[in-house]
């Protein structure tokens, strides 16, 4: 136990370790804000005219207000909820579809594998955002639909990683032993392959979360997925931008664009630092090759 702790302490003091700590703190902060949103936000984020039009930040409206008198602070705070909810749901769907398909495809091999790989590679090669907006436009707006649209993009990634890993594990002696002892195929996949493959999932999950938030923000900026009056950062940037093209005057527009944008940037940074740090620590071989 003490030796593990000592090793852990060594790990945490490296650049990767510091990244994990910093990234983890940022993500935790967002989770806390999302949970405490009703306490933190002084106003209803979806209610018009809780303040004057386009007020500059002051004690009541800490980040100022928008052209419709929304309180920007409340909207930014509640935005964390939507961001994290959609990302959780999207990751869940993507893992639920991508990982089993990857396991079966990798273990079975043959024609099924070739077909699935070709299919997933085709989807993967297609521009993420274009695929997501087409799906989002067809499904219509809403939290669940937005999550589905985002997950479509990431299914191939989970599939690829799981499949390639399965291919390697399949040849291990213990799998052969299980087969020789007469274990059934579902049993082998579930009890011998999945536990070995599943280690790589948390890292991709974290890194994909960053990407998923960018995709979701892009979707809502373009008018798909999350639509007004829901409080979401991408949407607020888009509203500010639309307003800006009409008037171009107000210094308030700076706040209105900068705040939700920064909310996105910091969360992405958190997920990226966490994911890359974890990746470095959990895959020491890769780290060696980079050193």
């Amino acid at each position: 136990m003490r030796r593990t702790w000592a090793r852990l302490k060594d790990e945490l003091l490296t650049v990767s370790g510091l990244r994990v700590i910093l990234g983890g703190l940022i993500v935790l902060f967002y989770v806390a804000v999302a949970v405490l949103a009703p306490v933190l936000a002084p106003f209803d984020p979806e209610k018009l005219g809780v303040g004057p039009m386009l007020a500059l930040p002051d004690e009541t409206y800490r980040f100022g207000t928008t052209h419709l008198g929304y309180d920007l602070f409340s909207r930014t705070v509640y935005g964390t909820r939507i961001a994290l909810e959609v990302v959780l749901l999207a990751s869940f769907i993507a893992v639920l579809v991508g990982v089993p398909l990857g396991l079966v495809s990798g273990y079975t091999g043959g024609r099924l594998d070739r077909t699935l790989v070709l299919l997933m590679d085709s989807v993967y090669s297609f521009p993420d955002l274009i695929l997501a907006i087409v799906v989002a436009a067809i499904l219509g707006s809403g939290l669940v639909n937005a999550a589905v649209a985002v997950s479509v993009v990431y299914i191939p990634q989970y599939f690829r990683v799981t499949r390639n890993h399965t291919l390697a594990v399949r040849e291990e002696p213990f799998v052969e032993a299980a087969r020789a002892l007469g274990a059934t195929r579902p049993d082998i996949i579930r009890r011998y392959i999945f536990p070995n493959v599943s280690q790589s999932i948390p890292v991709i999950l974290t890194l994909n979360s960053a990407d998923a938030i960018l995709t979701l923000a892009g979707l809502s900026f373009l008018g798909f997925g999350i639509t007004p009056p829901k409080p979401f950062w991408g949407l607020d940037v888009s509203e500010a931008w639309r307003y800006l093209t009409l008037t171009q005057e107000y210094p308030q527009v700076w706040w209105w664009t900068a705040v939700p944008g920064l909310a996105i940037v910091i969360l992405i940074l958190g997920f990226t630092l966490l994911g890359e740090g974890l990746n470095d620590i959990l895959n020491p071989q890769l780290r060696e090759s980079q050193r």
Partner: protein
Amino acid sequence: MNYIAVRLLLTLPMVFILLTLVFVLLRVAPGDPAAAMLGAHASIEVIEELRQQMGLNDPILVQYVRYLADVARGDLGVSFRFKVPVWDLIKHRLTATLELVLCAFVLAVVIGLGVGIFSATRRGTVWDFLGDTYGILTYAFPIFWLGVMAQLLFAIQLDWLPTSGRFPAYLVPPARHTGLYLVDSLLEGRLDKFLAAVRHLVLPATVLGLYISGIFARMVRTNMLQTLKADYILAARARGVKERWVTLRHGLRNALVPVVTMLGLQFAMLLGGAVLTETTFNWPGMASFLVERLLERDYPSVQGIVTVFALMVAAVSILIDVINALVDPRIRY
């Protein structure tokens, strides 16, 4: 030559799958296109007649085969909204998108190679750390936000560059030869038009290029580091080859194959990013047109545009393979 032919054949299934995906997605879309086209006041008989005409009453398989045959003949269908062939609507937008994406791509390659090689050769120093930070930061900035902020700062506050569009209204766009304004204006011998086009391109191309450049820099760095550890690098150094020559001639060339391959995937990312950049800067390209058509539920146009995107992705993937075969003579089938 043989190699290229094989690659072409291997890309066919991918194109086929993408086209099928597009077809299926748009058949699942809710709403009757015929009713949408005629508006709210059309009678059921008229709608039914149009459905018949448009072939919407045929079995789905017949529609699918017809779609594939149409695409093969270069027919992308007719827009519901404008009632003209989709191709006529997007051919000018296609070149606008290409101009933007190519400029962004060149910028990203220049920055990416520069930062990547710079960090890889100074591994573990402050410069390496800064290069890494650059990569993480450019990735974390949402491209549309960067665009809007750049617009606010450089176009509105400082008034250095135009806010949006592709060409000023007071000038006649250059005669079409290639469709790329930068090239066409030079062909016409009009420097003023060229500069006007450049001024409009600067912001969107930079924003789009920066977005990719960070990821690209990190890929170049990782691959360079791997190659620089190889024995032949040590051997070259032992022979007294100059360090710069070792880096560029021995290191970079060998690091380039995986990098070029990933560039192909980055190109798809650029197209996705173009959707956001074109919308932000009101660039009259294909990607912003896709958004517009989607919002109006003009599905035949959407199908046509997405088909063109799919073909572009396939074309780039072939191109990448060809370039790789040229860079690395070891790659053969």
